[in-house]
């Protein structure tokens, strides 16, 4: 989807306008282009997943949106303010950038008070955000004594301090245990319920799939796709795992499927094949096998996932950034 298409679509939506919009956003560090001509169009009120492999340029993009890194070229607006003037919109933005960073010797509450004072926010806002992030009982303890999950929740609390209209969370589930990940998902969903636009980045596509209704996919600093998660899933070609009752029939089955225009991929160490069947359903495949005298042992439609969509869009089978396009420590 192009940026214009996204704008057209979102302009018709009840949400009305874009929370984040960029054109040609580019960042070069010396001779490395980390973000390359990014055109983002993130609708207001959406929970937007910002997906890409490690080194794709997600964190650098987020830093540009937050005014921490100056774009080499390009322009954009956030909540109506130009990204060249971060002060025009950052009072309405909350952010958790990479790992949470606070003063280890201060308590969680004092860390938030320091930020509240800096942002000229009422100190009375501190305890409610601590309560919402489930940290109120430990708010007086020093930050250094917090577990990783608690540190992450304090980061979320800090991001919520300004009652933001846009929340930018960079890899918020990084390092969390499964319980912490579930908690974080619940927290992020609750923000969406409050009408806050949430931009959440992750290199775990499956993670994004569970909480987001909109997705932006980037790879090697370039936009791969952006649009609603539902549309992306629906646009995928159906895929089936197919296995013949007798292993010896597999070559014949593969031939029949290929003759019918299917893409057939052998599954390693299995006697089944992965079949991409444009325009065909399970019944069609079953009929095709039966026409060759083959009885199927397995015929399963595989789940339509964002991960599959990402690989299909990038034409790769791996989430890794290709050699020579790695971004090093800067993501």
């Amino acid at each position, binding site marked *: 989807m192009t940026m214009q298409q996204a704008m057209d679509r979102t302009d018709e939506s009840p949400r009305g306008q874009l929370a984040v919009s960029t054109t040609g956003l580019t960042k070069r560090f010396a001779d490395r282009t980390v973000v390359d001509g990014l055109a983002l169009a993130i609708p207001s009120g959406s929970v937007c997943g910002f997906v890409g492999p490690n080194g794709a340029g997600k964190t650098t993009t987020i830093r540009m949106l*937050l*005014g921490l*890194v100056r774009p080499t070229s390009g322009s954009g607006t956030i909540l109506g303010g130009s990204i060249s003037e971060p002060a025009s919109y950052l009072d309405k933005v909350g952010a958790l950038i*990479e790992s949470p*960073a606070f003063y280890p*010797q201060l308590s969680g509450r004092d860390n938030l008070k320091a930020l509240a*004072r*800096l942002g000229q926010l009422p100190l009375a806002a501190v305890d409610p955000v601590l309560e919402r992030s489930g940290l109120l009982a430990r708010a007086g303890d020093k930050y250094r004594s917090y577990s990783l999950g608690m540190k992450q929740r304090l980061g979320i609390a800090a991001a919520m301090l300004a009652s933001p209209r846009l929340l930018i969370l960079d890899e918020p589930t990084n390092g969390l245990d499964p319980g912490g990940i579930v908690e974080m998902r619940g927290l992020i969903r609750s923000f969406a319920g409050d009408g806050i636009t949430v931009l959440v980045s992750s290199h775990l596509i499956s993670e994004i799939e569970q909480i987001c209704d909109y997705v932006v996919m980037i790879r090697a600093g370039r936009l791969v796709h952006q649009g609603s998660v539902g549309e992306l899933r629906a646009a995928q070609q159906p895929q089936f795992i197919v296995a013949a009752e007798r292993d010896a029939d597999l070559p014949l089955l593969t031939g029949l499927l290929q003759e019918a225009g299917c893409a057939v991929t052998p599954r390693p160490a299995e006697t089944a094949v992965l079949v991409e069947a444009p325009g065909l359903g399970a019944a069609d495949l079953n009929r095709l096998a039966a026409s060759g005298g083959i009885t199927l042992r397995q015929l399963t439609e595989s789940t339509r996932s964002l991960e599959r969509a990402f690989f299909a869009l990038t034409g790769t089978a791996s989430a890794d950034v290709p050699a020579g396009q790695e971004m090093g420590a800067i993501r």
Partner: protein
Amino acid sequence: MTWAAFTSEWTKLRRPTLLLSTFLGLAFAASLFVVLMFSQATAHGGIVTLHQLAQPNGLVIGVARASMLLGVVAFGIAASQVASEYSLGTLRQLLVRQPRRAVLLAGKMLGTITFLVLALCFAAVIALIVAVVAAHSRGVPTSAWFTGTGLGDMFRELGDLALATIGYSILGMALGQFVRSAVFAVIVGFAWLIAVENIITRIVPSTEQWLPGASITAVASGGVEGVGYAHGMILGAVYVTVAIAAAMTVFLRSDVTA
């Protein structure tokens, strides 16, 4: 807005470990100088003579002699306060809440300077009390200390010390801004002030009056041999102005990737 950045910085600075270690550490260092000076003084020699200590400025001689040490400590604390924002990664949080970088840096500088000047005043008061006790124990008459001249000398010396502390603090913060590592900033700063300037001065004595550490030390001591008070004041102000301008320029232009 600068006031908001200032109060935010103080929320961090007033944590008990930093507050107590700085205030008590400086007080201990200044008092130690006073005790050593009084204990080593004799009628005809030592660091100073007992006769010199009985003069109107005798009360503040010890504190003045400790100025270099106090300045170096202030320099290290100021450098680490700025550099640690990079090493802890807290700078990105601060810049999201206050994207006007000049305002943030000005507030942080004012916060750190007031913190260190207050610590210095506390140390000076303790050291002066120690000086009175030490004078009594060594039989040094103190009547001249509390005359108009003596009290004038005391306030002038404390003012000079405060000015020197501001100078050291600003140079420290600027260095912390450039190197972005608390440990490296402290090592480089200490090495320059304690060793490098001494070596340069010994090799080429005429350079003493142009070095930043020497000029600020001259201000702290009311002028020293080789660097007059007025010269130290002007040169120190130039160094401080250049340091602020350079730190501000770097901070305004640099990408925050920490």
